């Protein structure tokens, strides 16, 4: 029993210490963000690997999620004779929930794990150490551009995902299932509010962008500098980001749509 308690205590202390380390780490990285404006090119290159390279999976998933929503939504609504509301249903589910959340989960799998592995390998091969010895702070040079790129890319990816979902649901709904095209858009426009739905979706994806990128770069920076450590850190990134995104989504939803 005492053993068990001790184990629990040790586990809790280790978590707290790690959270503290992660916070200090974030502060040091944030201090490096202003300098990034002068080194715009670094940011652009990270936007490429974090944003552009995630585009394919986001586009494909967005289209399929939209098509499924169109089909399922139609099946449900047609029982109530309310298939004209398909646009509303699809747009609300995508802008409020599915867009930000699914994008963040895909981001964790595609870009987050890559960030962790990249930084972890740089640590394992002493590249970070050698950078420090060259009097270059890796927090600024390596981590800050990657964090900023993640935060910028997430809302853009989420918007692309959401829009493609709405468009593909439109195609499925009107071409395949015979929903009236005018009703699809007008019902949607009447019931989707910019502030309540679109803007809060953007805020969500910004928060997810910060959290997902933070977890990814910290796991990489804090990993054991061995091949096993890097692989474990990569797994941690995907698992922790997914859990954090889903948990935060509940909290944000409760706060924004009370």
């Amino acid at each position: 029993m005492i053993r068990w308690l001790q184990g629990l205590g040790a586990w809790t202390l280790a978590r707290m210490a790690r959270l503290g380390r992660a916070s200090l780490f974030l502060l040091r990285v944030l201090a490096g963000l202003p300098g990034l404006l002068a080194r715009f090119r670094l940011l652009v290159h990270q936007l490429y690997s974090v944003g552009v390279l995630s585009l394919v999976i986001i586009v494909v998933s967005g289209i399929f999620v939209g098509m499924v929503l169109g089909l399922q939504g139609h099946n449900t609504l047609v029982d109530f004779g309310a298939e004209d509301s398909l646009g509303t249903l699809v747009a609300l589910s995508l802008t409020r929930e599915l867009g930000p959340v699914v994008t963040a989960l895909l981001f964790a799998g595609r870009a987050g794990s890559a960030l962790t592995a990249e930084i972890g390998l740089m640590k394992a091969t002493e590249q970070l150490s050698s950078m420090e010895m060259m009097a270059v702070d890796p927090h600024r040079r390596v981590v800050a551009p990657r964090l900023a790129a993640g935060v910028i890319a997430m809302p853009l990816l989420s918007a692309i995902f959401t829009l493609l979902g709405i468009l593909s649901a439109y195609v499925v709904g009107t071409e395949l299932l015979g929903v009236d095209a005018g009703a699809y858009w007008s019902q949607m426009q009447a019931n989707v509010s910019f502030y309540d739905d679109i803007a809060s979706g953007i805020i969500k994806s910004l928060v997810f962008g910060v959290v997902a990128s933070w977890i990814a770069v910290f796991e990489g920076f804090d990993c054991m500098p061995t091949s096993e450590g890097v692989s474990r850190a990569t797994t941690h990134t995907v698992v922790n980001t997914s859990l954090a995104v889903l948990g935060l989504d509940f909290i944000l939803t409760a706060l924004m749509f009370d």
Partner: protein
Amino acid sequence: MGTDTAPAEEPLIEIRDLHFARGERAIFSGVDITVYRGEVTAIMGPSGTGKTTLLRLIGGQLRPDAGEIRVAGERVDRLSRRALYRLRRRMGMLFQAGALFTDLTCYENVAFPLREHTRLSEALIHQLVLLKLEAVGLRGARHLYPAELSGGMARRVALARAIALDPELVMYDEPFSGQDPISMGVLVKLIRELNDALGLSSVVVSHDVAETAAIADRIHVIADGEVIASGSPEALRDTDSPWVRQFMDARPDGPVPFHYPAPSLAAETLGGEAP
């Protein structure tokens, strides 16, 4: 070689009564080492004695538990991060595997410290990078990525990068380990020549006795967290300390036992029943 260089004995690094422990394990317990300007100083000892740790302590990446480390008169262990980074611009370090940035070409690797710390024009950077690469004989390899280089070449590019900012001090972490005889010879020659031609001071951490002895002006042998012998290579070769003899002559058994401490073999294999 090179023992005839006898400059004014001006210390560059002074380590006094250094204590450092990793967790429970004491790595250094009272180490005193002085590195003089213009010399090649070797730190030798068996693997696992914390030679690399010593370099990290000098570079300020680790802080000692007690004692002091001065580099060019400044207390490395007391410096603020800013001051430490300023001091590090005057040091170069060659990591064991080179630690080149894998996403940059050799050229960009060598240009990296120049771009980070200077506002030189692209043309000037080009000239400097080519000069540094020429110094290590790899000007022709400038478009290659680190993955396309052999281990020895990667170390030479890393050396070019380490001297890009014309440091006063270059530290080498196991420069000879895992090298074929030819690239080992190249590195031995490079370390000595760069030291003399550029007016550097060098600290070489190694356990390769013959190569190190060939270029070092002064050797410190570390074991069990202490410096057990210091002096010129000749002096160490003639020492009568059995420990140093074992190390310098590479004898398998001696004061450092071949066996890791363990209960007697009979006791373990016969289940502790043996008389």
